[in-house]
């Protein structure tokens, strides 16, 4: 390994967004320690730091850095925007949530920022080492964020479950990486791609084992069935804005890392059954996610199972890596961030801590008491179920079209059928919002100015992408083209 490239020019421009978030997180912790009276300002400052990070994208140098281990390009910019968007929405929702729950501490936002840095490393890593380091940075921040309400037993339990399962999954990812290293003599994805492109390469059973181990680990991080059982428990126990963030951003980061790995393996995939394994994971996720979600009355558990199904849809597009597949996944993650964080946002405003389940009964009749919040939840549900003219429709259509064009018609058909079944449980929420009488002693909705702003961003984003998707599609397709053109 040549270490002199560490001193190459422009390296600071390559990691500018990450630097902004790292320093911003440290600043927030110090600010919290030295100005305890101005604690209520930590939330707004966190939003400003996230916006600074998005703005710093303008100065980012494009290319490969740090000895060929870090690639910055169009697609990483699209995913960076997704991560920052999820971070901003989560910060806005948390600002009100934390105040209501009586949690203080600038480290909450700092952990959110460092987790975002981890995701950016996963998206840009051109070496399995960088991807794993990013994944661990993200995971460790999530462990702490999940258990942030340490006085609540459920929060602690969510953290424990994610920690044990997450560390277990990391072990699988590491062993898979080690076995790939043994075959390809490198962990650099470009070097691995050259090895896989060699026509004489034979796929030994050991490599298949390595792939299965890798998929088991990443499947856990994505909450793909059958590695999903942690998801409902963790989402239910976690602070609600964190659950929303967890259901969106880490999945996007894992998907882009998997896209890079699958693209490198491209030449050998036709002679292996590897993609059949991935296809089975997708099918199982769609069927289990959508059918179990119907039985859920707890809103967060329902969204957890719906998230399992949604990741199943995104995995369909990954079965063949081409420009459309990458672009459709990028768009789906952006829309998914808007609609899922919006839905979790409304749930986070229910004046109830997560020790008690937040069920459908809590939102009965909300449409007449709090029209704006009910409207936000209804729009998110329409978008999640994929009804026009929302962004959910456009992105889901693009995913299924990509799958059919790549010749995965059967799997796309399963996706469409399960997605139609999913309309039942999404619209049941809307039914409770508008058609049910609210009972006595109703759960209040406490929406502060920040959380309401987050909902407004979600609604505007969902409709903007739903009605006028062309600019986003062009940007994503161009970025995907640059990624795959190597």
């Amino acid at each position: 390994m040549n270490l002199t490239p560490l001193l190459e020019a422009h390296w600071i421009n390559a990691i500018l967004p990450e630097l902004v978030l790292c320093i911003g997180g440290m600043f927030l912790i110090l600010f919290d320690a030295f100005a305890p009276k101005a604690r209520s300002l930590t939330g707004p400052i966190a939003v400003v730091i996230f916006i600074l990070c998005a703005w710093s994208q303008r100065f980012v140098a494009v290319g490969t850095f740090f000895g060929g281990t870090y690639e910055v390009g169009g697609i990483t910019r699209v995913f960076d925007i997704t991560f920052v968007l999820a971070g901003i929405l989560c910060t806005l929702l948390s600002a009100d949530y934390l105040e209501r729950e009586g949690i203080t501490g600038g480290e909450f936002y700092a952990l959110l920022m460092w987790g975002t840095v981890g995701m950016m490393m996963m998206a840009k890593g051109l070496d399995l080492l960088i991807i794993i380091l990013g994944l661990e940075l993200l995971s460790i921040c999530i462990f702490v964020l999940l258990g942030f309400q340490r006085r609540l037993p459920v929060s602690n339990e969510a953290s424990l479950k994610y920690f044990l399962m997450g560390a277990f999954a990391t072990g699988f990812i590491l062993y898979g990486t080690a076995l790939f290293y043994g075959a390809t003599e490198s962990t650099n994805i470009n070097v691995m791609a050259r090895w896989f492109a060699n026509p004489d390469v034979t796929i030994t059973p050991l490599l298949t084992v390595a792939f299965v181990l890798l998929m088991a680990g990443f499947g856990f991080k994505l909450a793909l069935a059958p590695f999903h059982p942690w998801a409902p428990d963790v989402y239910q126990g976690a602070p609600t804005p964190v659950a929303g963030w967890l259901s969106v951003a880490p999945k996007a980061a894992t998907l882009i890392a998997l896209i890079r790995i699958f693209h490198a393996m491209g030449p050998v995939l036709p002679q292996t059954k590897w993609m059949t394994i991935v296809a089975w994971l997708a099918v199982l996720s769609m069927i289990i996610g959508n059918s179990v979600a119907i039985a859920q009355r707890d809103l967060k558990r329902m969204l957890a199972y719906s998230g399992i199904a949604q990741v199943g849809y995104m995995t369909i597009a990954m079965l063949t890596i081409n420009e459309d597949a990458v672009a459709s996944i990028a768009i789906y993650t952006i829309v998914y961030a808007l609609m899922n964080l919006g839905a979790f946002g409304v749930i986070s405003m229910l004046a109830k801590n997560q020790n008690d389940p937040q069920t459908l009964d809590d939102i009965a009749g909300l449409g007449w008491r709090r029209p704006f919040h009910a409207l936000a939840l209804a729009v998110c549900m329409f978008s999640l179920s994929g009804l026009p003219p929302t962004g959910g429709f456009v992105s889901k259509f693009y995913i299924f079209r990509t799958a059919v064009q790549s010749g995965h018609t059967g799997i796309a058909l399963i996706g469409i059928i399960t997605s139609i079944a999913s309309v039942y449980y999404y619209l049941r929420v809307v039914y409770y919002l508008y058609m049910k009488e609210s009972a006595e002693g109703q759960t209040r909705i406490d929406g502060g100015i920040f959380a309401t702003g987050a909902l407004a961003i979600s609604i505007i984003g969902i409709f903007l992408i739903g009605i006028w998707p062309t600019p986003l599609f062009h940007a994503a397709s161009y970025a995907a083209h640059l990624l795959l053109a190597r």
Partner: protein
Amino acid sequence: MIPTHYFLILSAILFTIGVCGVLTRRNGITIFMSIELMVNAVNLTFLAYARQFHQLHGMIFVFFVMAIAAAEAAVGLAIFLSLFHHRETIDVDEANLMHW
């Protein structure tokens, strides 16, 4: 020189012992120790390959893996401590507030 596959078989056995430990043990700390065993089996695999290829790359990977494991242990033990505060036990079967 000892052939590489001796090391690989040993690390595969260690990894399997680790997985079995995670799946069968119910004490939180023991589960975590089994996970550490899995990670150390991975380190052995990396070192064996790095020796075979005469590369530094695999050895550097091992340093990072050790750092990751240490960071995970720090957070993990804090989580177990917090669990002990609530339940007076670190038996993971007792952590069953949530069911579907």
